């Protein structure tokens, strides 16, 4: 397991990335030091409740943070090269070729005054230069077909499309240049369940056909389970656990991951929705120590003082929680269980 991971080649490395929003009452620490790798051909899920900083993290990676936001620190390495501090014209030349985005809220992500074909065409021309009109037309029609859209969409304006169709136009656009990495920010969350499945399948199909690496942001754990290889669980600007999808579902370690997985609704057994006590802290002023302490059912004294470092409790499964400690012999122990007060 460890070996195969080592053999895989990371296309994107995110190191201690911090994105803050400036507000009159102090900085909102929307993304506060996240670390992860994205391997070639892999799909990484990024989950977490609304407002935990998923989109902000995506913008930080894409170098699209706009004021009042700013990248406050860290490193984003694309194929080994740092993206931070690259001048805008250099960035522009790698945008969409290396990093494509399927935006959150695809409903409003298309320019209402441009035809679908022109919006796909402009990104092709911007990066590949002028082409014969017939070639571009063929290419766009093929892209539309790939995502299951009829050719008539070519000449349509966004307002003439349904939400699902717009979403698929965005997917077609994202794959137009065969990018290295696609970041899909809740590509399906605004859609009804049926269309959601169709779009998700389209995404999966496209991904398999192209072999791109993908970061899939969302909060639908059920959908994630089917789509991604690994999952990163985010809470209040930090990644609290990252693990292969099977491991995370079978054995979530972080109390917040456990909560997320428990809250997946199931038809077979009706369980009361579990609401944790305590409130989320003010994102401008996080408490010292662990970020989850206010809602954690297992909170200990240590949690209020020291922020837990990431610990690899199992190959590929990294948890940031004081509940887990490494013994001297390298084995893992659950502190809570050991103390017998679960």
């Amino acid at each position, binding site marked *: 397991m460890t070996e195969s991971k080592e053999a895989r080649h990371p296309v994107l490395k995110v190191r201690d990335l911090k994105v803050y929003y400036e507000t009159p009452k102090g900085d909102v620490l929307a993304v506060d030091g996240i670390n992860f790798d994205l391997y070639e051909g892999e799909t990484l899920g990024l989950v977490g409740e609304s407002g935990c900083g998923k989109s902000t993290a995506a913008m930080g990676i894409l170098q699209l943070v706009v004021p009042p936001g700013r990248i406050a620190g860290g490193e984003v390495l694309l194929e080994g090269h740092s993206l931070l501090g690259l001048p805008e014209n250099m960035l522009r030349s790698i945008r969409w070729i290396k990093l494509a985005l399927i935006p959150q809220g695809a409903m409003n*992500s298309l320019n209402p005054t441009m035809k679908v074909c022109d919006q796909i065409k*402009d990104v092709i021309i911007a990066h590949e230069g002028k082409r014969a009109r017939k070639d571009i037309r063929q290419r766009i029609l093929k892209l539309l077909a790939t995502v299951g859209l009829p050719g008539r969409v070519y000449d349509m304006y966004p307002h003439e499309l349904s939400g699902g169709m717009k979403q698929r136009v*965005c997917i077609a656009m994202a794959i137009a240049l065969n990018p290295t990495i696609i970041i899909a920010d809740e590509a399906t969350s605004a859609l009804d369940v049926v269309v959601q499945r169709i779009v998700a399948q389209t995404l999966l199909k496209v991904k398999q056909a192209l072999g791109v690496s993908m970061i899939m942001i969302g909060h639908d754990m059920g959908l994630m389970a089917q789509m991604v290889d690994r999952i990163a669980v985010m809470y209040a600007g930090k990644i609290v656990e990252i693990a292969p999808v099977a491991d995370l579902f079978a054995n979530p370690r972080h109390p917040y991951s456990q909560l997320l997985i428990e809250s997946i609704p199931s038809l077979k057994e009706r369980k009361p929705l579990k609401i944790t006590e305590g409130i989320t802290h003010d994102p401008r002023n996080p408490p010292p120590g662990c970020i989850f302490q206010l809602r954690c059912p297992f909170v200990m004294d240590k949690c209020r003082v020291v922020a837990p470092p990431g610990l690899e409790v199992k190959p590929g499964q990294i948890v940031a929680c004081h509940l887990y400690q490494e013994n001297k012999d390298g084995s893992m122990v659950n502190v809570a269980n050991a103390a017998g007060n679960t």
Partner: protein
Amino acid sequence: MGGITFGYLARRLTVFFLTIWISATLIWLIPRVAPGDPISAMVARMTRQAGYVENSDVIIEGWKARFGLNDPLPVQYLRYLGNIIRLDFGYSLAFFPTPVNEIIGRALPWTVGLLLVAITITFLLGNFLGALLAWRQTPRLIKYIIPLGMIFTSIPSILAALFLIYVFAYMLDWFPMIGSYARGMQPAFNMEFIASVIKHGTLPALSIVLVSFGYWTLGMRGMMVTVEGEDYMHLARAKGLNPFYVLYRYMVRNAILPQVTALAITLGTLVSGQVLVEYIFSYQGMGTVIFTAIRNQDYTVIQGASFFVIVLTALSVLIIDLIYPMIDPRITYERK
């Protein structure tokens, strides 16, 4: 799909003619409910000029009969509508044998010309500067300079006109103070005449532009800021497009739409503002015609000129309304 359907065109034309009919009716009605009447006014004027008019009562009665003022009001009204359809406004009372149409015919092209030039410049300049104000990549210096140019926005166009006349015509003598072209020159299509027209038109046009472009600048900046926050701007940036292309194809293209609507709404005000400016510059357009007519109590000319100004305004609004569906693909006019 955008574009104009037949039904929309028909509806829009109906509104156009309805507007004109209602205004024509008001123009007819107001003098009839207002104190004083054209014929006594004319006799009074003749009295002033000649000292005494013999048999003025007889003259008044004679004219009343001749102009049909003794007929029942509905008959008068219908006859009036009939005349309007034939664009016949009768004769000027102040310059008697001259037909109203001739007076208006001389003035209208000047007004239309000045209006087109002034509004086009105002709209383009205002929106261009507004876009620059809001665009992130605009150099700082420009962003500081533009608001300085907007100091005229809060003053009335008459004051701006007087200021311009004082500075550029009186003090610097760069431009003539009044008129539409040099006195004594024969209107002709040659360089000399055109140069003279431009020279005479600069200050009137400038006083309209100066006081109104800031309005468009502020509006455009607001719209641009709104567009900047739209989701599609995010995607446009993520696509790595050329920033100038993003500026005009994504930002300005969308921000300008409400501005065009605003143009249609404010056209009436723009036209009446120009009427004042024309008068100050003795520009031989409709504004001057209307003011002179009011001073002379020249009812027929007032009637005719007001009617044409209304038609001009309604026509401009109609044109904008017909253009709008072509620039905003979301508008289809296929309801009902």
